[in-house]
């Protein structure tokens, strides 16, 4: 009531509203004016936390994101006994790195197991070696894995074991792509082809 009857309040508020509208319009136009062609992978710039973790690698070394600072990092969650999704995804990434050629040496694929119980470092090493030298197997304890799942908002869960004690693990399917400064840039999804991955990685390498 008082706000309306006061002489200068509407004026001040109107100016404030006009300023807010101008800022909103400018940012909208700015978004439209960004004229880079879109990536084939999902652009997640500014949406996902930068690369950060504390894990153990396939050679039993404690590693953090800083160890991969000058590489383009592809982060993927899976497990070595995965029947379909993990081998398919990793094979696609291997093909993409093959297409990249010598530039692939600037790329690291970090395969984080969500099944550290069965995936010992030795098992991990044997598994990732199938895909190429750029592939690195990582494992963590329960707390380290939970931290990662909170940070990257991913989920995994264990199915009931069969009578031989074998069980499957449902997990996220995305490959998180981080640039050389550790910023999250792209998400590779299961329907992306090796060619698409290679093209977008090349673009990220060229721009960094």
């Amino acid at each position, binding site marked *: *009531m*008082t*706000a*309306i009857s006061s002489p200068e309040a509407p004026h001040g508020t109107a100016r*404030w509203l006009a300023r807010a509208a101008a800022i909103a319009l400018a940012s909208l136009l700015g978004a439209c004016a960004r004229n880079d062609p879109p990536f084939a992978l999902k652009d997640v710039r500014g949406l996902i936390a930068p690369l950060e973790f504390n894990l153990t690698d396939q050679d039993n070394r404690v590693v953090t994101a800083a160890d991969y600072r000058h590489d383009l990092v592809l982060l993927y969650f899976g497990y070595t006994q995965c029947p379909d999704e993990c081998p398919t995804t990793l094979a696609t990434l291997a093909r993409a790195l093959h297409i990249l050629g010598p530039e692939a040496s600037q790329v690291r694929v970090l395969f984080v197991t969500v099944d550290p119980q069965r995936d010992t470092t030795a098992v991990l090493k044997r598994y990732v070696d199938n895909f190429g030298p750029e592939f690195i197997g990582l494992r963590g304890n329960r707390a380290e894995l939970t931290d990662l799942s*909170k940070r990257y908002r*991913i*989920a995994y869960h264990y199915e009931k074991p069969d009578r031989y004690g074998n069980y499957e693990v449902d997990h*996220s399917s*995305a490959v998180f792509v981080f640039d050389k400064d550790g910023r999250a840039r792209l998400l590779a999804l299961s329907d992306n082809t090796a060619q698409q991955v290679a093209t977008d990685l090349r673009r990220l390498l060229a721009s960094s």
Partner: protein
Amino acid sequence: MSSAFVTDLSYLLPWQFSPTIFLICAVTVTLYVQGLIVLRRGGAPVGFWRAFTFILGIVLNYAVLQTYIDFLSQHMFWIHRFQHLILHHIGPVLVVLARPGRALRAGIPVRLRATLRIPASIGRPVRLLFRIIQHPLLAPTLFVGLIFFWLTPSIHFTAMIDTRRYLLMNWSMLADGLLFWWLMLEPRQSQGGAAMGYGTRLVVLSLVAVPQLLLGAYITLHGTPLYDVYAICGRAWAISPLDDQQIGGLLTWIPAAMMSLVGILVVLYHILHDPEGTAARRRGRPAQVPRTAPARIV
């Protein structure tokens, strides 16, 4: 045995702790309980069911934001829909129905009351903003618009992968739920400058149900997954994407729209008990009013 117990208790802990939510809930409940004690001593106690309704509303909102339900809401579409049914509908309705203002005010320590006076430089723009948001056209548009906005697949995707947008989504739903249901359910005479007539409310409540019904039906009956983020980031447990989507669609469709019916019943109750409305009826039919009635009404 004891470790299983600890694991069960851990479900009550926040997935991502929010000091803001914790503080708001703790301060609100403390003030409220203190207010209950003060009012009881003053001889004007708050009824049990009123207090129960308020506490239940706070507990439900807290539970969907700061327990394991929050994790499940990020990784299962239908639990996300359940979370928003609480945040945008059921939680705010309970809080508003309890009309906690009297007890909350009574709960503020006397010494603090003078220092807590809000300066006009803040109070004025806030009041103006409140009047704008609570405009009879804007409030229902915002109420329905927010549901559609956050359920737009591309926006839903970013809200689920970006922590800040996820928090913004949940806060916006809770804040809008409280504003909208206050406008719909609070008796007219205690709404001050933002008062809305009961007839208008019946129209608004009926109208906001329609787009919710349509959206819920669309999601439920859509033959392919609309929200791929749950497959990309992983689901909380094994469920087919379409089952997940259909349960989520039904939660958007039936209970959310049914809250309009609850609102309409509350407004009808207000119409029957409104002092001004009763006075008008009495003027029309003076002979039928019992002798004792005027004393009770005034």
